[in-house]
């Protein structure tokens, strides 16, 4: 027996079996306890509740939604809202981050100081505090009656930001955004993948034009299908009674969250990009300058692409992080996925199922982002090294 205990294979096998048994015991006891709790509380489990009407109203929704809609529709609304906020936040944060990083690596000392101050300040304040601050700020804008009008047709009010828009349904807008996203992905794939590098320049140009044309055609079709009947195509917001009617309204919740994610995420993105810029060997930049490229072209054609390649894996993590940060929406009342799940829980009591949907939704969306960006990373990685 002691020799058996000293046998390494036997020990590791026993250890693993014991471990599996312990995990099984915990899981089984959790499931049985859950069944007991559900039975004693007289609750029903299962996904039948998805087709019941919710009876609650939510604030912002791109899709058609009212209190008579089903839980299925409510969750879809949350998914779309999360995607809108996530994509908007990621794009804005990258713009901010790129500007700040460019300032941080510039040769001018005062720009370095500004960039450093920005990063130090906004990285040391929690995101939720920034979101609440911006929310308080945008809801304290004047009432619609005496709104700021910085540009003709653009109104800043405490009830949201109003601007001229197309009179189409929300579904059409979501469809158009989807088309644009798909088009952008197809375009990037066509431009970057080595498969398409070998074909001739004129055929590449045709290919680019075809992709852009198809995307625009799909958008136009979606817009045309989603037009609200008996309305001019472009509607301008006008004051009627206590609030603006018509046009496109950016709700304060979305505005505040987008600003907060752009500023906070932008600080992190700028640090990542700065590291990337500094990782590019000086010789490359000097070689580019020696070839006669102007400073702007050295930056856009040599420095930025090489820095981007160096930090794309880190940026991927940051994008996933910013997408997860959309769950802060509940703090200001933006109807994102987490928000609609939590009001569905209070409304229907189907806690386990709804949390399952929530986690599945985030796992799928985050893995989609990682998958796309990892494909991009593979496509632009240096070959043959």
């Amino acid at each position, binding site marked *: 027996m002691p020799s058996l205990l000293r046998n390494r294979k036997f020990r590791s096998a026993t250890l*693993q079996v014991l*471990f599996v048994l312990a995990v099984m015991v915990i899981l089984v006891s959790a499931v049985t306890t859950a069944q007991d709790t559900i039975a004693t509380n007289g609750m029903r489990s299962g996904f039948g509740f998805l087709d019941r009407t919710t009876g609650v109203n939510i604030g912002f929704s791109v899709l058609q939604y009212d209190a008579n809609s089903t839980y299925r529709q409510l969750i879809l609304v949350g998914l779309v809202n999360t995607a809108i906020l996530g994509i908007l936040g990621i794009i804005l944060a990258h713009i901010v981050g790129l500007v700040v990083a460019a300032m941080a690596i510039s040769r001018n000392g*005062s720009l370095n100081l500004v960039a450093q101050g920005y990063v130090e300040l906004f990285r040391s304040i*929690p995101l939720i505090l920034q979101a*609440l601050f911006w929310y*308080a700020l945008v809801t304290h804008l004047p009432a619609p009656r005496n709104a700021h009008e910085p540009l003709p047709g653009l109104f800043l009010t405490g009830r949201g930001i109003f601007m001229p828009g197309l009179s189409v349904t929300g579904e059409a807008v979501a469809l158009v955004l989807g088309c644009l996203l798909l088009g952008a992905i197809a375009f990037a794939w066509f431009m970057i993948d080595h498969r398409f590098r070998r074909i001739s320049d004129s055929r590449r140009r045709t290919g680019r034009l075809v992709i852009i044309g198809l995307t625009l055609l799909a958008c136009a079709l979606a817009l045309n299908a989603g037009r609200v009947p008996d309305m001019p195509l472009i509607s301008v917001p006008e004051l009627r009674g206590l609030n603006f009617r018509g046009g496109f309204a950016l709700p304060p919740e979305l505005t505040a969250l987008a600003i907060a994610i752009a500023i906070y995420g932008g600080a992190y993105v700028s640090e990542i990009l700065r590291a990337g810029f500094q990782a590019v060997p000086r010789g490359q930049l000097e070689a580019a300058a020696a070839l006669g490229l102007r400073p702007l072209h050295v930056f856009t054609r040599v420095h930025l692409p090489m820095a981007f390649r160096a930090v794309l894996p880190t940026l991927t993590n940051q994008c996933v992080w910013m997408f997860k940060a959309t769950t802060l929406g509940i703090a200001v009342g933006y109807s994102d996925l*987490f928000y609609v799940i*939590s009001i569905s829980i209070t409304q229907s009591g189907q*806690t386990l199922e709804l*949390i399952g949907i929530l986690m599945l939704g985030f796992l799928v969306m985050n893995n989609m982002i990682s998958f796309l960006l990892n494909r991009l990373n593979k496509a632009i990685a240096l070959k043959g090294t």
Partner: protein
Amino acid sequence: MTDMTHPIPRNSRLEQLRHRFLRTPLDIAVTAASLLLALFVGWKLLDWAVLSAVWTSPDGLSQPCRDASGACWAVIEARWRLILFGVFPYAEQWRAAVATAALILAGGLSCLPLFWSVIRQALLWIAAFALFMVFMHGGVFGLSSVPPAQWGGLALTLFFFVAVVIVGMPLSICLALMRRSDLPVIRGTAIILIDGVRALPLVTILFTAALILPFVLPGWLQGDKIWRVIAGFALFFAAYQAEVLRSGIQALPRGQEEAAKALGMGYFHRITRVVLPQAFRNALPPTINQLVITLMETSLIVIIGFFDLMASGNAAYGTGEWSFAYVEVYAFIALIYGVFVFSLSRYGRYLERRLRVGSS
């Protein structure tokens, strides 16, 4: 870097400054513009925050602020106890202050080289935590009992942070060791757990801990909501910290562990005497970074209904009396977070410098 790659004239500091700020006419213009902007913003800020600010309001009302153009710090004067201690019983708030001070003191002490050993750190934090519980929770030594539901403000935020790190740090070591185990089942479990937790937003994990755990745990194990949420938060922290530690372990030369094996050391001794001390040393800067992020993320517990610093700040200006003074309250809270975050990250940079000196 040598002078060849960095052709900055090094004859004087003044020359260097001139090169950085005033090299070309464009640089001069940019520097002048930034300086003007900084002066303008600085002056506006000074005017708002100090010169035309209202510092005090004798009767605790917002009237003096309503006509002033500057900041209304009177709201802090009227509400600072709410912001720091939440809804802790008013007469007992000195206890919350002592408990908070104990945690801050322990944090400061643990930064001293005197406490840089696992045993001393553990003892220090257990002592601080016990002191915190005695004063905050009470129920012993003649102090009245205050349940966690009444804790709030800065005291609750710091308590959460410390509890999460105390529970999460050992857990992260376990996860990191499990992930690099030779046994496929154990390694697989660790990978699923770590990657699964990292793919989810923190809020959903806290929500699950608050709402789902009561379903699946038998009654005797449920405990108060605060402990379940701390457990969930600690799991989240551990999943990230485990990856930090794993990278620290991977940076070790393989020879270290092989040498320990050759000397006949068992697994436990190899890990605790050879691998972990060096791994911690490698992973110290990212660990500090992780702590900073965790401290800021504790503000998310407001979403699942805890009355932490963030929530008490909202309550401080939430009444009709002070509803206009949100900027001042948020600035005060940002300052509190900022002080902790700033000192932690400064300490991290100091450690980084010190470690670099030691290793080269």
